[in-house]
Every structure is written in structure tokens, then in C-alpha cells.
């Protein structure tokens, strides 16, 4: 208090410092929470048109429509969850051995190998997935769940492998040696010591992969549609058709797992693992 009073006596304008600060924070809050609030309103709006700044009628009519058998939401939600879970399983099955090898073995070109997992992200998605779709079409993978899972795995593997590598390097080798020394074989050591200690990091990488898969649009569109419809696709169709209620409800469905998982990640990912990502 005294400091601000003194500052004010020196410079009368300093007393008004809260004005720009208030404006900046207000704008930030508006840009973050405004759209979210707008979306929430849309999910319960029955009637809402132009000159009115708030809905005219509230209700859960759109929810019934979305979850009706013909609404397609249940199918998309199931598809999205199945694909996301399978993507997590496949990614971890690849990332656990790869991450362990990258963390423990003295591999030549280790940095290059880690970088290679970034390649799917390095090129414009559209070009890549159009061609993937063409190839998948030839081998009969187009429009199938395994096809979409494969595309999502190629996309999510960078998170899975990088975080798994970091999680394994954060474990002191002596902890494994202690188990070997006391009579545990290599596999037993991995299962009893390494894996439980790496679990929080692996959990976090699983969550990242899950969220990536849930959100992914381009690949799902080119490889999945129209046989395998996913949640983002439903959102796109509804949004493009001007059906904001359905678009908002779909967006909310996508948002809930994201927020839940971000909270879990924040709990599980410790600084010692994070500091090793990409090293």
C-alpha cells in the first residue's frame, strides 16, 4: 500500500496502473472463458437467434437429439473411444521397449532416432494423409478401425516414445542392478522395479496419446470416413451445417476427457521426468 502511495506521489499516472492491468486480465479471461461459456450456453439453448445476446429458451432437447440412435453421436463416441484406447495400447507396446532401449543402451545416432519420431509431424498432415488413404485403400485398410488406429499411432508415437524414454532415463540404473544382484533375472527386474517406477511417466504418455487420438481430425477424415465416423467429424459436420447445439454438445464431449486427463497428467508427470524429455 505505502509503496503504491509513494509511487503515486512521485508520478500521478502510476495510480492508474491497475487500468491497463485490469484490461489485459479481463481480455484474457474473456478470450479463454468467453468461448467456453458460449459453448455451454449453446448446449442448453432451445431457441437463440440474432439480435438476442442470451438464449430465448433453455432445455435439453438437443442432448436427446444427439444421443438418439439416428443422431450418430453414440456411434462416433464409441468409435472415438475404441480408436483412442487401441492407439494407446499399440503406442505403449511400441514405446515401452523403444523407450527403454533409448534410455539404457548406448545407441549410435540416438538423437537422430528420437528425432525420427517427429517426422509425421514435420510435414503438412493433409499431404501425408491423402497418400496414406490411397495406400490404405489399396491394401483394404481404408475405412477400418485398424487403419485409423495405425494413422493415430504414427501421430502419437512421438509423445509416447519421448516421454517413455524420459521416464526410463529418470530411473537410477543402480536400482535395477540391486535387483539383479539379489537374484532377479533381467525380465523380472524390469517387471518388478523398472516398470513400476516408470509407471507415472508411462501413464502420462498414455494420456497424451489418448488425447491426441481423440482430437485428431485429418487422418480420421481421410482414412476413416465415411465408414468409421469419429467425434471430431461429427463436430465438423454439425458445425458446418449451422447446428450449433449439436456442435457444442460434441465439443463438450471432447473437452471433458481433455480436462480430466490434464489434471491427472499434472499429478503424474514429475519435474525429473519432464526435464529429460527429448534428451
Amino acid at each position, binding site marked *: 500500500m505505502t509503496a503504491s502511495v509513494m509511487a503515486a506521489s512521485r508520478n500521478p499516472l502510476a495510480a492508474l496502473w491497475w487500468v491497463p492491468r485490469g484490461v489485459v486480465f479481463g481480455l484474457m479471461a474473456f478470450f479463454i472463458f468467453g468461448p467456453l461459456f458460449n459453448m455451454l450456453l449453446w448446449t442448453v439453448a432451445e431457441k437463440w437467434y440474432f439480435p438476442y445476446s442470451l438464449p430465448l429458451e433453455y432445455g435439453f432437447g438437443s442432448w436427446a437429439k444427439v444421443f438418439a440412435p439416428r443422431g450418430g453421436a453414440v456411434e462416433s463416441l464409441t468409435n472415438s473411444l475404441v480408436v483412442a484406447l487401441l492407439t494407446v495400447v499399440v503406442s505403449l507396446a511400441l514405446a515401452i521397449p523403444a523407450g527403454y532401449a533409448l534410455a539404457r543402451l548406448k545407441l549410435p545416432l540416438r538423437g537422430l532416432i528420437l528425432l525420427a519420431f517427429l517426422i509425421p509431424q514435420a510435414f503438412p498432415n493433409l499431404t501425408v494423409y491423402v497418400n496414406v488413404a490411397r495406400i490404405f485403400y489399396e491394401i483394404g485398410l481404408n475405412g477400418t478401425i485398424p487403419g485409423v488406429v495405425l494413422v493415430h499411432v504414427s501421430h502419437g508415437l512421438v509423445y509416447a516414445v519421448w516421454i517413455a524414454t524420459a521416464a526410463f532415463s529418470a530411473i537410477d540404473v*543402480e536400482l535395477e542392478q*540391486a535387483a539383479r*544382484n*539379489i537374484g532377479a533375472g533381467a525380465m523380472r527386474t524390469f517387471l518388478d522395479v523398472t516398470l513400476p517406477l516408470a509407471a507415472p511417466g508411462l501413464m502420462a504418455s498414455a494420456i497424451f496419446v489418448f488425447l491426441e487420438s481423440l482430437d485428431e481430425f485429418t487422418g480420421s477424415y481421410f482414412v476413416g470416413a465415411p465408414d468409421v465416423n469419429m467425434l471430431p467429424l461429427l463436430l465438423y459436420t454439425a458445425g458446418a451445417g449451422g447446428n450449433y447445439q449439436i456442435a457444442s454438445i460434441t465439443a463438450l464431449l471432447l473437452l471433458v476427457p481433455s480436462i480430466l486427463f490434464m489434471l491427472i497428467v499434472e499429478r503424474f508427470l514429475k519435474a525429473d521426468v519432464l526435464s529429460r524429455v527429448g534428451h
Partner: protein
Amino acid sequence: MERDGFLELRGIASRYGSNEVLSDIDLSIAKGEFVALLGSSGCGKTTLLRLLAGFISPSAGQVKVRHRDVTHLPPDKRGMALVFQSYALWPHMTVAQNIGYGLKLKGVSRAGIASRVAAMQSLLGLEGLELRKPAALSGGQRQRVALGRALAIDPEILLLDEPLSNLDARIRLTVRHELRALQKRLGITAIHVTHDREEAMVMADRIVILNGGKIAQAGTPEEVYNRPASAFVAAFMGAENVLSLNGAPEGGEFAIEAGPASAAGSVPLAGRPLTAGPVEARFRPEAARLFAESEVAVIGPGITFKGEVAAVSYPGGHWRHVVRLGQAEVMADAGHAFEPGTRVAVHVPAESLFLFNSPSAAPASTVSRAPTGRVYA
């Protein structure tokens, strides 16, 4: 005790790239023996221990237990339990799970594990801590859990990698004796790596001093302390005063010529392979006796130097003097203080004067002089 062949190392060598970490290690350890591997950092002592545990393969040589070659067995098939310097306790397991893990691997029944873990806890004073995680233990307790985990599997050979170095100085002194008493009671063969001379002296039946990846000397604490085989060992064991003298063997004696600061004298050779020429003389500050120059020192065989007190301090128990002998300076202890500037005579008895032919002097200079007489490197 089967003196030969319980644990045998034959011609062990280990290299890291082009760097030879260990070479020509020959050692035979009896069952129930407590051997200390002593040396400064980088001497290869930890490498040797890890090689025994099976984490490193030797580039040459053999490790045998009861005449069975174990050189290339994986770590889990060796029956040697290692206590790590970092303790390496598994943070996701409780104290009881840490101690019982080795038994679980052996397929011991749940009740069997519980009773063995309880026995270990009472042996090591860990009662009531079985459900704690390592993070909730003090340093001393962690050290005990690490020891308990190693002892629970009833190992034939216990390997200790500086397990006391992370403890408080006061706890360390009691743990030394506890550890030694435990080892004797259980009759386990123990190999203890340390850089602490006193720790090795107090705990071990036999001390193996390593220098530059080779065994510099192996013997009982009394042998390495009183009959160092080389200038390096003498310096490492605290004989930090060094002077150069000239002399030649005469019959059973080694006759030392008078020098600028010393009178002529002679000491028994006692089987030492000394040849005529310059020799390096080493002795401990506490072995020297200090007199005022005017006093007539008529004492047994040995050598007397004359010089001037440069400084005096009281480290406890006795007064420590820095005495200038011509160009050189030595440290000598006495029961009472001599003022700086006093002319004094320093007498070193024959049995405390270590003589080495000068060419071997080179490695000795790598040992730094520590005022307490202990060498930490």
C-alpha cells in the same frame, strides 16, 4: 578356514576403451575373511567390486568361488550380495518389501519371508519400520535396510561399496563396529571398498591397497601399517614426512651417511631389498621424537635430524611441530610444545623409519599431505 580357493581372483584385468582400469589382480580370499579394498578415487577399487558382482566383465583373468569359474555368470546367479554406496533401495517398496524381495525371488513362502524379515529387522534395529517407504527413513536407517536386503538372502559373499561414506561421522564410527561384529557372527566373507584408511584398519582382517589398478600391497592392518612395501603404501598409510638420504647395506644393517641436517646412523635391513645409493626415507609425525638440541639423545638405533621449529599447533593429544631441516620440512609430535625458532633434534627410531630406493619415489608424490594425517582423495 579354507585358506585357498574360497574366492579367487586370477590375473584380473579390466579396460575401459584404451584405458586400463585394473591389471594383474591376483587375490585369494578365505571363507569368513573380511577384506578391505583401500585406495584413493580412480584406483579401480569400485571397478573390482562391480566386476565381482558381475556388472562388469573382466578383459582378462578369472573369478572363482569354491574352484568354480563364475567369471561370466550373470549378476543374479552369483550369490554375492552388494550393498550400494547409494543404498539403491526401491522407492516404491516398503522396508519389509525391500528386505523380503530376494526371498520372494527364491520362492520362499509368505510366512517364511515374514519371519526372516522380522529377524533381519531385530538384528539391525529396524523394528516398527516395516511399513515405511525408504523416503521416510533417515540415512542410517536406509543403510541398515540396504544391509538387511543383502543379508536376508544369506549370501556367501557380502560386497560393500563404501556403505558408510554417506553417514554422519559419529554414526559411522559405531556402524563400523556393528558391521564388523555382525560379519563375524554370521561368518560371511566380506569385501569392503573404502577410501578411509582408518575404516579399513578397524574393520578388516586383511587390507588390499590398490594404486593405479594394481595391488600395491596386501596384508594385515599391522603389516601394511608397519611394513609398507612401497613408498606409495607408506605415504598412503600416513608416513607423509619424506626426506632423501644416502646409504648402503653393510652386513645386516643399512648404513646411512651423514647429511646436511642429519647425523650418520644405521638401521637393521630386516630383509628389505635396499641397494646402495639415494634412498627415500618416510616416517609418521607421531613416530618421531623431539628433543631440544642441547639435550643429549642417547636412544636405540635410528637416525637423528637437526633443525629448527617453524610452527607449532595443537591438534589434540599432543603438540604438532613443523620442523625445518635444511631445505626440507617435516612434521613431528611431542608431549610438550617447543617455541618456533627453537633448535631441535628429531629422532626417528629404526622400526618407524621406512626406506625405499629412490626410483620408486615417483608415485608417492601423488598423495597430498593432510594435516590430520588422514588421506582423503
